[in-house]
């Protein structure tokens, strides 16, 4: 059996497959590249968003081991919008199990102390309530393995968490938020949660370029952005201005998904992906499309 693992080192965009039925409702026909779903019910948003880009079955096959990378950097409350919404995580885990995943591993290398996150984070607490689902917050160096970045410009190699080597599918699940250094912290910035030494990135000759470099070796199969609440100012830790957008964005193109999230969250300031340096640099390396309007977008209000 050919390894399904495409999210690390090699990578190709998964083309959308035909739409699926969920709970008897037909959502957008699943040929969209990108979906933006808004509505009052979080799980319905997630289902529709994933359904519109092919349904979870397009990404998770029976028996697959799935890794989900949410933002678990802080043990902050949900209202602060600095970490992935627990209900969004719950819905994504559910979808993975429904698609036949053998196991789901939630993984992040948090900024705050891992013991505190494991104990206090409402998002982390969701995992305890789900079967065949585990959480890993690796905070010692021996759990990471040195990996080359052959096309890297500012970053040539980095230590990536060993767990990924055992996974078949990677789903990136960031929250939409502002970041004082990189403008936003979305999927591409979120990849830093899978490496050991994030300081090396800040310290490199070009921080934004180094993020693009990392994105050349870590390519999630699916990126889902939690924009239920978005942090518009004073990120990444806040407290800052929280916008209640009640939206979920999903797609396979990591640059386009991030750019779409920027446009959605920072609309009142007319900002777009082209205003975010690590996104323009990622696009320049051929990692995705910076102008989402060029893609087939499914937008829906539930």
């Amino acid at each position: 059996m050919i390894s399904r693992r495409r999210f690390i080192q090699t990578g190709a965009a998964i083309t959308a497959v035909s739409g699926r039925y969920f709970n008897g409702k037909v959502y957008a026909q699943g040929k969209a590249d990108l979906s933006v779903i808004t509505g009052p019910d979080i799980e319905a948003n997630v289902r529709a968003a994933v359904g519109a880009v092919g349904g979870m079955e397009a990404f998770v096959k029976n028996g697959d081991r799935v890794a989900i990378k949410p933002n678990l950097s802080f043990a902050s409350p949900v209202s602060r919008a600095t970490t992935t919404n627990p209900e969004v995580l719950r819905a994504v885990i559910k979808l993975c199990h429904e698609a036949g995943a053998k196991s789901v591993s939630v993984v992040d290398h948090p900024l705050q102390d891992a013991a505190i996150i494991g104990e206090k984070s409402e998002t982390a607490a969701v995992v305890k309530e789900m079967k065949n689902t585990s959480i890993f917050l690796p905070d010692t160096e021996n759990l990471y393995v040195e990996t080359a970045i052959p096309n890297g410009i500012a970053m040539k190699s980095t230590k990536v968490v060993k767990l990924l080597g055992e996974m078949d599918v990677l789903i990136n699940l960031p929250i939409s938020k502002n970041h004082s250094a990189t403008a936003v912290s979305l999927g591409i910035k979120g990849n830093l949660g899978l490496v050991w030494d994030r300081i090396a990135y800040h310290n490199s000759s070009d921080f934004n370029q180094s993020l693009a470099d990392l994105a050349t070796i870590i390519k999630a199969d699916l990126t889902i952005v939690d924009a239920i609440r978005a942090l518009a100012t004073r990120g990444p830790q806040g407290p800052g201005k929280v916008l209640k957008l009640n939206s979920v964005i999903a797609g396979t193109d990591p640059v386009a998904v991030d750019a779409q999230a920027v446009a959605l969250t920072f609309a009142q300031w007319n900002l777009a992906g082209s205003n975010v340096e690590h996104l323009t640099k990622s696009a320049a390396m051929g990692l995705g499309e910076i102008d989402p309007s060029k893609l087939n977008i499914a937008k829906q209000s539930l």
Partner: protein
Amino acid sequence: MAGNLKSKRSFSFKLRPLIQGITLIFFVYLFLKIAYPFQKNLATNAFYNFDPLITLIMVLSGTFFISALLYSVFTVILTLLFGRMFCGWICPMGTIFDLSEYLLLKKRLPLKRVKKPYGNGPYKNIKYYILMFLLFGSLFGFTAVMMFDPLVFLFRVFTVNLHPFAILGANEFLDLIRPLAFKTGALKLSMLSFEQPAFSLGLFNLSLFLAVIGLISVERRFWCRNLCPLGALLAVLSRFSIRGRRVSIECISCAKCAKSCPMNAITDNYMGTSPRECIQCERCKDVCPVNAISFDMGRVVEEQSFNPSRRGIMLSGTGGIIAALGAGTLLSTKTTAGTLLRPPGAIVERDFLDTCLRCGECMKGCPTHGLQPAFLSAGLEGMFTPVLTPRAGACEEQCNICGQVCPTGAIRALSLEEKQYAVIGNATIERNLCIAWEQGKVCLICDEVCPYDAVEFKLVKDELGSIKRPFVIEDKCVGCGQCEKGCPVNGPAAIHITPINEVRKNSGSYITENVRRLREVNDDNVDFSKETGFSDEKTMPYQIETEPETDDFESDLPAGFN
């Protein structure tokens, strides 16, 4: 006759090691429980609460008195009635000596033959001098020697030495089996790894411990006989104990009892016992071939004189006073005060030095291992007191363990909210070390990791260009040290915490209206060109002069969506 009357193993023979084992295991259990998340309960500081030496020192030094210390009255009563039973049955340090002796000495070195005269060890009075030194020192404000209370000493050994060794061993083992675990799909096992605690003064502390253990090859239970200040206190209280060793006329003077006594408490004629040294272990009763020994109620006539030299007592007491006075003038709290970062909620430094047991509980509990033992940086009297060392570990916003565990209140037990307002110090940026200031790099880690939003970035134009540079908002900063910990500069951090603006209070709230107001978020007029990280002005197509009309996005979708 002698053959037929082989003594039966007494009940204590089996019971005592059991009690010792249970107590030691309980000690280790309480030790391991001091970790995040921490739940304080009655038993947390049980060993210290029952320690009358600690209580006495707290009373003499006139500082905080935690009512829990009154439990030590039980130990006093126990000793008044049953002598140094604490030493023989309960003290975990004593258990370790017995265990070491059993494991190390019994099979390797022959037990030193005790020479006559029995019962009069040459060093046994030293513990009384140490006790005097400690008590008089405390009276005059020098409590540093508290670090040699056996329970305090042992806890510190666990924190600074034994536990880190155990973690090291566990990690080595896990690393060995990790490839196998990955292969067999045992994910949780393959990703299991413990954060390695590391403490300064580890070698120094370990040397002291090994020296104390090593002394059992000179005399059995050397520490208990000759050095232990708690043992000395209990010895004084044992004078009138009502349970003790009695010898009947069956005694054949074979000397087996005197040779078996770990405390050398039996006199030359084998009939007498020193109640001050006897730890009620009943080994003598077990070895007596004619069953002449029993442990019964009724006052024991003291056969050995209590004979610490008067001069020795006076000298040691005076020594304590001199040390106390000297510590305050020669060794420096004057020169070091205000240069160290103390845990949040630490009381005023003078009182802190009087009250801190140097036990290491706060250091064990600190999840980042940021609390480290001081060597001489707090003066001689500050040795082993906790100092926040951000480069080793910062103070976590969501944690308040140190105050919760402190047995004496040297670190106040603050609620989580109070602790988030208890200022440890303030961050200072060394601009010529900072890579944003000096090299124009996009670093900004200090802002990223600051939980209090106390670092802001402003565009500053200089020869490198118009670049975002960090500034510390002093009123918001509590000195937690996350910035210093995260700063990527090699060597001393470009942003570091100094004790300036620290707030030390023995009572009362730390929350001020000013800071509470500052922490409220009011971002309706944020200027995106100068903050928040978006690309430089020339590529920005937006207008920022007008204020956004509404921030109610619940019903209004952003433009473009339907």
